């Protein structure tokens, strides 16, 4: 598991953008801390989201995920710690010029129409987005035929879809999505997944907070797991999920075949089910060929790796033994 890199080009106090340096990370935060009265919500959180990277923020309820996101966006004042967004200090509002945000609590002016909400956000972002382009964003989230309707009459799911369009409309380089599918039906969730993948293709950095681990596992390059306000683990999916395994259903396994399996990796077995821990998937055909050669009857071969869900539960239950902060 790779430690979170905290080395990054720091801009000077004036927060100027330097064209000739390699682009600074989309998000860099260090030592974020926040207390609400007696309760510590966030305690020394540091991580980086590189440009064009999709990063997942995972953790149980009350782990401090939304607080961290709000501190990144200047909505909540951290008690300690620093934030850089796209290379500019988070205390400077203009650091958010190229940032799109979908809050967990998504509500938009009920007296405006969907099209007017997008227009408002384009103006506030200081951008210029032509009419038809704004309509495309509404169409992208499935609200093309509701553009002229007041938001007050929208269902929760429709408001969340509108929120996605709001987050994306001003051409952001970083998108922060806090539970973007909480009010969506399965179809809507699939749409969001496609949307995230298309953002990734366009090189837009995404910070995704989601309870849906499958969603995170499918789209995220890296994951930070928060627990009780601290970073419990972080790394790429490969680093976090680590070893692969091979699940087999076998008959007539003689001592020679058992030895062959043991040579491939640690074996656990019960009945006709065998699981072999592997370092590399490439050896699977050889193992199967050797087993067949040794007279073993092979009923099923299923390569796999432990799921993010299993890993997350493991990390949260065993404490922070592999803490990377």
């Amino acid at each position, binding site marked *: 598991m790779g430690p979170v890199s905290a080395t990054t080009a720091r801009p000077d106090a004036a927060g100027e953008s330097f064209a000739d340096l390699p682009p600074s990370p989309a998000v860099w935060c260090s030592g974020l801390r926040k207390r609400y009265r007696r309760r510590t919500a966030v305690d020394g959180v540091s991580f980086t989201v590189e440009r064009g990277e999709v990063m997942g923020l995972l953790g149980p309820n009350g782990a401090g995920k939304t607080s961290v996101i709000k501190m990144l966006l200047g909505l909540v004042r951290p008690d300690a710690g620093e934030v850089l967004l796209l290379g500019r200090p988070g205390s400077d509002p203009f650091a958010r010029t190229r940032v799109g945000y979908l809050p967990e609590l*998504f509500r938009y002016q009920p007296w405006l129409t969907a099209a007017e909400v997008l227009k408002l956000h384009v103006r506030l972002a200081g951008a210029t987005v032509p009419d038809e382009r704004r309509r495309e964003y509404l169409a992208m989230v499935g609200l093309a035929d509701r553009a002229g309707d007041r938001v007050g009459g929208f269902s929760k799911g429709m408001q969340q879809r509108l929120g996605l369009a709001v987050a994306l409309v001003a051409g952001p380089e970083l998108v922060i999505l806090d539970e973007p599918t909480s009010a969506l039906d399965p179809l809507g969730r699939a749409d969001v997944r496609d949307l995230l993948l298309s953002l990734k293709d366009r090189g837009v950095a995404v910070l995704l907070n989601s309870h849906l681990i499958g969603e995170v596992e499918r789209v995220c390059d890296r994951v930070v797991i928060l627990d009780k306000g601290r970073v419990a683990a972080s790394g790429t999916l490969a680093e976090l999920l680590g070893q692969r395994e091979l699940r087999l259903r076998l008959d007539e396994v003689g001592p020679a075949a058992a030895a062959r399996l043991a040579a491939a990796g640690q074996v656990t077995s019960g009945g006709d089910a065998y699981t072999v821990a592997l370092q590399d998937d490439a050896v699977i055909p050889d193992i199967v060929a050797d087993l067949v050669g040794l007279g073993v009857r092979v009923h099923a071969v299923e390569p796999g790796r432990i799921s993010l869900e299993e890993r997350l539960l493991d990390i949260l239950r065993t404490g922070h033994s592999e803490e990377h902060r």
Partner: protein
Amino acid sequence: MTARTVLTIAALTLQEAARRRVLRSLAVLTVVLLGLSAWGFSRIDSEFGGMTSGEAKLTAALVLNLVMFGLSLIAALGTAFLAGPTMAGETESGIALAVLARPVRRWAVVLGKWLGLVAFGSGFVVVAGLAQLLIVQTTTGYWPPDPVTGLALLAGQAAVLLTLGLLLSTAVSPMASGIVAVGLFGSTWIAGVVGGVGRALNNESVERVGTVSRMLLPTDGLWRGAMNSFQDPTLLTQFSEAFKGHPFLSPTGLTGTYIGWAGLWVFLVLALAALSFQRRDM
């Protein structure tokens, strides 16, 4: 960029005021009040035909001030109950999250809201007040000496109250901020009346109640200045006794210093509102 934020938020606030039910309620209340006053003034003219011209003027000025007080009350209630939801309500509901995550300075958002509310409140006062003055002129032929100053001071009164409402709404819930603002407005008016009675009785300590409350919240002071602008100045010499301690007649106009203080008051309270909003966790 910051100017753009201020103007965008101001326009949004005006749009909100125009589209929310509060505008319709205000319009209905105003039309009812104007209609009643038109009927009342036409009765004054026909029933009290035997009055001297001075008495007729006094009655017209007095009733005009009474109706203007009603209008200023509507303006105060309307803007105070708009100011609350627009700040505290948006923070509570989460509307503010998406807006404040944009590259905007929070003080610019507060200033934009304030500008929008002031434009709305002043627009209301000017339109409804002018309609009222025209009604009085048509029915009784009375035209106040300084209607522009009077309407400007009424607009100022609404601005003072909505600034207070804005400050309160950065700290407490929308409903509470509206109620507290209107409550303070009412108490200052009553304190002003008490002060007037004190002056009529030559009791300095009672008179001071009005003076102090007029400094703490300039709504009543501005209101008395506005009343003075709606009265014919000859009335004061003719009916000086009637002016003593009267809640709807004002013997003196406003000094430049007091208007300066009211301006400074608005600036300070607005700055405080911006500061309080700046420090708030969303």
